């Protein structure tokens, strides 16, 4: 690998002063932690919103203390109104999808560990890296601002279908300034992701240290690399789409508004637009976004699992190939969100096929993980528990996709809780398990201290059982025809399902409360955790060849030479049963 030997040698000196060191830092490690912190904050807010939603769905007239203070119009007398429910739902989804599932596993861990895992001192463009975080932070602030404006946050869902999202305040509460802020926030977010993706791609291709061929890159780096290519193409479509949406809202254009709209008995002057255009643009981004959320999880699990199984990942080349295949196919399946949207029914058949085909690489990866577990000597520490938990929830979530991928079944299940169950398992819960596994695994490296194992295990058990208790029953609701995005279930046929909703609400409150264990663990361990050694898990990748936490330039001026792939576990060597990537020691072929 000649290109890697030409890695740019960078000499930026460690910054002085609080602002340059912690706020406007160009250090990828600080930026990674900033992304992670932002995701943690967004996750806390998003989780509280989901609590409010679940309480409202279980007990519609429940009084929620202090809520009126936050939103006098949305919760008069501390009771959530139907429109405020929709706002809570929209904000929950937007925060979780963009600011948690995209931000933590990809931008957060990726920023911190991608440069270290390829042996670089920093990202290719440190200043752009700093900018991409602060742009993302600005997007977050703009979105949160909408809680504090007169008519409340947007309520059109995270998909923001036009014309509900595009005609403005005439469409009802939440469709005024709140929706404009939503579109602006997402547009800004896209800019941050595009900058970040460019940085990831360049760093991976140009800054690998000597000996770090593409084939020797850890699977997590591969996943971040593939994800950033997907992100570059996907956010590049969502950005102009949000731009057009803003124009429709504030400049009187009609990209998404057809002629003849009469809203609230008011004839609107639009003509020539198409609501389907928004759906195509949104889902052309939206489906790849699912993989942006989950592929880093694939990479994290594929990297961590061998560490705790103490053996090589079975077929790691195949896993890389599957991730690339998933990334490629992810651009051909967006129409499966639109089977009943009114597009030509023939195209539903065309979109159904690649949707089903994409399950093949996913199945291969799962089987290879299972094959890796076979015959292992598992050390079931908390990161490993979250790895096997990930495999379980990903299987569960993936299988319900077989139903939704078929137009003939989607016509019944579309827009029911079956879909809610599906995407929560396969992308939200699975990605969260990836984030948890990554956190327990990399925390010692990031902060130089170990996390508490007992708290970690309790956190795992409560979360694992909890997510099944929350989301499994949603399949049953969906099969019974329970429509999603309803603020209340007033239809006769939904009445018998309300006890199920109550059960889910209780499960959600408990599972949410269990996340406090994680939060306490992170905060406590950050300051009081036992000191971590350089390589507490006996792992092989480059981040474990440097101190915990790594110095400013990652390796203290050393220029590493890589001799091995990332998976030399279960071998006999002087250090035990593994050989680090930088070790010159020869490994006997096994």
């Amino acid at each position, binding site marked *: 690998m000649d290109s890697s030997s030409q890695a740019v040698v960078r000499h930026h000196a460690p910054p002085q002063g609080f602002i340059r060191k912690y706020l406007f830092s160009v250090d990828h490690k600080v930026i990674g932690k900033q992304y992670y912190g932002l995701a943690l904050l967004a996750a806390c807010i998003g989780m509280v919103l989901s609590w409010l939603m679940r309480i409202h769905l279980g007990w519609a007239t429940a009084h929620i203390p202090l809520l009126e203070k936050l939103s006098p119009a949305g919760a008069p007398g501390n009771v959530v109104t139907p429109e405020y429910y929709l706002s809570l739902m929209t904000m929950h989804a937007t925060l979780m999808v963009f600011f948690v599932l995209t931000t933590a596993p990809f931008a957060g861990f990726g920023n911190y560990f991608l440069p270290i895992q390829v042996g670089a001192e920093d990202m290719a463009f440190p200043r752009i890296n700093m900018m991409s975080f602060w742009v993302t932070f600005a997007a977050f602030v703009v979105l949160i601002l909408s809680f504090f404006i007169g008519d409340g946050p947007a309520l059109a869902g995270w998909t923001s279908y036009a014309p509900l999202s595009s005609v403005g305040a005439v*469409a009802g509460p939440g469709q005024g300034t709140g929706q404009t802020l939503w579109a602006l926030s997402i547009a800004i977010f896209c800019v941050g992701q595009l900058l970040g993706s460019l940085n990831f791609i360049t760093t991976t291709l140009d800054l690998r240290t000597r000996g770090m061929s593409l084939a020797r890159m850890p699977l997590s780096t591969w996943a971040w690399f593939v994800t950033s290519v997907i992100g570059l193409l996907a956010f590049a479509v969502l950005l102009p789409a949000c731009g057009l949406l803003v124009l429709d809202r504030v400049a009187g254009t009609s990209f998404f508004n*057809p002629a003849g709209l009469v809203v609230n008995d008011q004839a609107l002057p639009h003509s020539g637009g198409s609501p389907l255009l928004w759906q195509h643009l949104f889902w052309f981004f939206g489906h790849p976004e699912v993989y942006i959320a989950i592929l880093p999880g694939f990479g994290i699990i594929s990297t961590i699992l061998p560490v705790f199984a103490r053996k090589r990942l079975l077929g790691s080349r195949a896993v890389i190939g599957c991730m690339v295949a998933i990334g490629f196919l992810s651009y051909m399946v967006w129409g499966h969100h639109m089977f009943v949207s*009114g597009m030509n029914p023939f195209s539903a058949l065309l979109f159904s096929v690649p949707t089903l085909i994409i399950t093949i690489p996913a*199945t291969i990866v799962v089987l290879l993980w299972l094959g890796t577990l076979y015959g292992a000597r598992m050390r079931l520490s908390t990161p490993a528990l979250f790895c096997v938990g990930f495999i379980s929830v990903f299987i569960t979530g993936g299988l319900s996709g*077989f139903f939704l991928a*078929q137009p003939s079944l989607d*016509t019944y299940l579309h827009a029911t809780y079956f879909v809610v169950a599906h995407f929560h398992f396969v992308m939200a819960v699975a990605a969260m398990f990836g984030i948890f596994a990554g956190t327990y695994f990399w925390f010692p490296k990031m902060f130089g201290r170990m996390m508490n194992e007992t708290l970690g295990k309790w956190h795992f058990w409560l979360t694992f059982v909890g997510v099944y208790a929350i989301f499994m029953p949603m399949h049953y609701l969906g099969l019974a025809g329970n429509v999603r995005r309803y603020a209340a279930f007033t239809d006769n*046929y939904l009445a018998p399902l309300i006890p199920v909703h109550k059960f889910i609400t209780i499960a959600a409150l408990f599972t949410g409360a269990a996340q406090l264990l994680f939060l306490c663990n992170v905060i406590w361990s950050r300051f009081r955790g036992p000191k971590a050694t350089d390589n507490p898990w006996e792992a092989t990748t480059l981040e474990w060849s440097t101190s915990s936490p790594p110095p400013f330039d990652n390796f203290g001026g050393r220029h590493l030479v890589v001799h091995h792939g990332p998976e030399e576990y279960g071998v006999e060597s002087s250090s035990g049963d593994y050989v680090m990537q930088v070790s010159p020691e020869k490994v006997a072929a096994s």
Partner: protein
Amino acid sequence: MGKLFAVVLTIITLVSAGLIAAHVWWLPVDISTIGPRIDRQMDETMVATGVLFLSSQLILACFVWKFGDKRDGGKIKYFPGGSGPLIGFAIALVGIEILVLSFGGSKVWAAVYMTPPEPDALHVDVAAEQFAFYFRYAGPDGRFGVIHPERVRDGNGNYFGLDPANDVAARDDVIVGTLTVPVDRPILLTMHSKDMIHSFYVPELRMQQDILPGLTIPLHFTATQAGKYEIVCTQLCGLGHYSMRSFLEVLPPDQFDQWLKSQSGD
């Protein structure tokens, strides 16, 4: 710890699958001619995914049980045959499943959405708006009045924007809030929306279709059982989305004729 995981996962798996197998919560009664085919497709998919669900979760539980509590020092074993056979197995298994499912499923989909309605179908025009459905029958003359979007007003009850003063065909149009249809007769809906995207969903018909402003969306079905069923909106259309519903009333043919006559007489 590994054994505990195996036990917990096995319990979760069996309870989850058991509740589905027992049909504790299940699809409501089917009242359409296409329903049995959709239900069969659902059952076949459920069996296929159920087998995969049970086998993969239980294998995971079994492996973690067996290999999860090993202390260091033992010899690791590799999966017999390596990754190649597993990859081949995955491609073959999922590939066959995809072929079978999409072959059967495509035919069902095509029968619902890509087959033209029978020529003698009863034509009902549907208007959706925040947050109601309205249904229009052509009346004795068999012709619908022309829609003028600029005339659509909820205030004076002109949900379809008709102009009866100048349009003879519009004068006898029957406009009601409940979709009343005769049993066993093909029904053709032409659906349009004046404001947001709405969706027409009757779980008992096994049918869901978005209604887009700016387009006229056709949908056809034949109801096979008399009774009253709920029509709900499944596309987020604003603050009252959850309350947007109507009813599908399926009547015996003679009662339907009587009903239509009584409506036209008004």
